């Protein structure tokens, strides 16, 4: 009886490989079909069959996340963005490493796995932010430009901040500040040229029961789903500063938007030199902010109102006399 149980559980493990699964980082694809979390359509790249995404694999063990990607690439870059925690970037144009003309809506990536022209030594994995910082990982890419490649990386969960869920997207892009030619999961704003806003991500639940430990005995495909976020373009409905010429205050900053947005109000000198953020990263669609101007020197100032979601900004002048 015991032999049967052992044999059948072994058999189960072989037929339905589930987490925890420790992948050998050696360039050979030992992921299982149940770990193919995103499969891209063949021949849907805007840049010919030499630059085509194929499949993204993902699995984990108790401490490490394993990602594999099969693709074809020639003289371009492969980028895999991971959103693991709150915060992150929404515009890859501003990166100091692998900047690309891609923006994000719905998920804000915190990590980037990137390589150029099938050479992982020209890329790597970094944490994203105002400045990127390299993280420790193990990785190998096998294959050469123009033919089928396989990239696999192992990242400790500790480095990723022990996420409960990971949202990801993979892209093939050109050089610095260039756009994307192929994406998985598919996103209609990628058209082979020009900028793109990615709002469709593949979301994998690592820790479904919230016990602080990655889930085991599950097939990653079963806990993956494609999430499509609304791309909103919140507009400023009404913005004013009252009074806009003040000696001591109180001064009210009133902002109304058509949609909830992440609002920042920045203060500049009259020549355009940045001083500080009066309101920073506030998620709202309406605010009447009481601004304390006691520590402000007398002079003319400029307030800039902008959100991370929309493309517009508003500028107002203010005087403290």
């Amino acid at each position, binding site marked *: 009886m015991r032999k049967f149980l052992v044999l059948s559980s072994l058999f189960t493990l072989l037929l339905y490989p589930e987490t925890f699964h420790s992948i050998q980082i050696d360039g050979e694809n030992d992921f299982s079909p149940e770990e193919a979390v995103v499969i891209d359509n063949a021949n849907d790249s805007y840049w010919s069959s030499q630059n085509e995404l194929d499949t993204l694999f993902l699995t984990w063990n108790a401490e490490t996340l394993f990602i594999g990607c099969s693709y074809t690439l020639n003289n371009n870059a492969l980028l895999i963005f991971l959103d693991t925690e709150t915060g992150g970037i929404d515009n890859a144009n501003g990166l100091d490493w692998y900047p690309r*003309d891609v923006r994000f809506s719905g998920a804000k990536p915190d990590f980037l796995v990137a390589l150029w022209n099938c050479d992982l030594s020209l890329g790597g994995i970094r944490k994203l932010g105002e400045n990127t910082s390299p993280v420790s990982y193990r990785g190998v890419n096998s294959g050469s430009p123009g033919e089928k490649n396989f990239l696999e990386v192992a990242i400790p969960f500790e480095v990723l901040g022990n996420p409960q869920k990971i949202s990801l997207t993979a892209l093939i892009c050109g050089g610095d500040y260039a756009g994307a030619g192929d994406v998985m999961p598919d996103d209609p704003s990628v058209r082979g040229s020009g900028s793109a806003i990615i709002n469709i991500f593949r979301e994998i639940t690592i820790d479904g029961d919230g016990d602080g430990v990655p889930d085991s005995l599950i097939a990653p495909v079963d806990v993956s789903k494609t999430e499509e976020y609304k791309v909103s373009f919140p507009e400023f409905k009404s913005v004013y500063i009252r009074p806009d010429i003040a000696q001591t205050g109180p001064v009210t900053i009133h902002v109304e938007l058509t949609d909830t947005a992440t609002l920042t109000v920045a203060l500049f000198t009259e020549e355009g030199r940045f001083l500080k953020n009066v309101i920073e990263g506030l998620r709202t669609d309406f605010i009447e902010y009481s601004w304390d101007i006691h520590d402000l020197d007398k002079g003319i100032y400029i307030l800039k109102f902008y959100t991370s979601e929309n493309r517009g900004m508003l500028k107002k002048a203010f005087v403290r006399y």
Partner: protein
Amino acid sequence: MILLILSLGEFHGWFEYQYTSPEWEYWNLYQEKNYGEMGFLYKLPGRTETYTALSFEPGKIQFKRMHLTFQGNFFSIATFKAEDRHWFDSPLLYLVSSERVRDESYGANAEGVRCDLWKRGYASGFLFSRYTVTEKAQAIIWDLKKYEGFLTWGLLYLKKDWVSSFNEVASVRIGLFKRPFELRGEIAKNLYHPDTPDSENLAGAMELRIVPLGPFIILGKAYSYGMNFRDELSNEYNSSRTDNQGKRGVYGEISYLLPRRAITITGKTYRENLNRYWYYLEAYVEFVNNISFKTCYDVTRDRFGDVWKHAFFEVVAEGKTGRLKFQYKIKDIGVKNVEYSIGQRSIFGIEGKLNLSQSMWFYTRVAFGEDQRTAWESAFFQIAYRPPVSNSEIYLEYGEPSHTDADLVNDGDIADREGITTVNRVRLILKYYF
């Protein structure tokens, strides 16, 4: 004896040194490039010429380029390496793009043989080219044509062989000329390509030019490219040009030179299947004092159904003391809140050259862009000195020239990339020619 032989030939070449000091290396100066070429040209009797060039880099001397040519009254044969001898006529379909045949990577790299024959208005050319750098492949191109007279015609055959497969294309073209009319037609067939079946593999085009018709210059063209027409030696029909596959359309162009004024008005348009169209209107004015002004407006509807409008203004002035070009462009007029475009933007640019003395000048290109959200810029400054006595050039540069080198504000780098900034790098380039 060797000296005698050497003295019958011509030695020439150049050396180039580049020193770079970038901000990201804390402005530390380092030698970025140390390169020289030395070529020996030897003209033998019987109109034979040989040329060999060696290239010099630290630790590496290479046999860089060569040619051996024989020239007769009606033929020429050349065997060569790393030279561009890959041109072939294809006036309507552009079936041969020389950069796709010559193994282009910082210059031509292919090795090859080329023969040309001509006699009394007829000519034939044959090229064999082998790629050595960008891929393992070879190409063969052959053409035969009659190029003079009222009736002209041509035949073209090309084949590219690479590791896994090959691609063969053949074409015929014809032309009729009677001033001011020029009528041309060209048709080509993709004989074989591994990715395409044997159907819808024809491409054809026909064109009528009337130069001039009074104050007008007129051009009309009709074209149709089959879904499965592939030509790996062309920029238009290789596998990554998915936008040209299955395209059919008409193109027209009219230029009107206003009588007695140096003003030219040009209109261009095309209409293609999938409801794609493009309209372009331009006015170009020349003033005294070597000043010219140009403005144009164009509207495009692409294969996704989106409409894009652009407007452009330019002033150019030239004089003894220098040159000045100022441009202003509004791109994607009216585009707002669209996922795949950064939206309406204005791009300004200036290019200037100031002659400081007979042998020294200052050159700059500065361009910046602005849209709803932010502004970005790229600048390039250069002081150039050509000492009058020696054949040398010295350049001191700041910034990145490639951001604005494709006609300033029309360069996609500055016009379409919101995050672009001036590259903080100083470079010193020294070149010496002999």
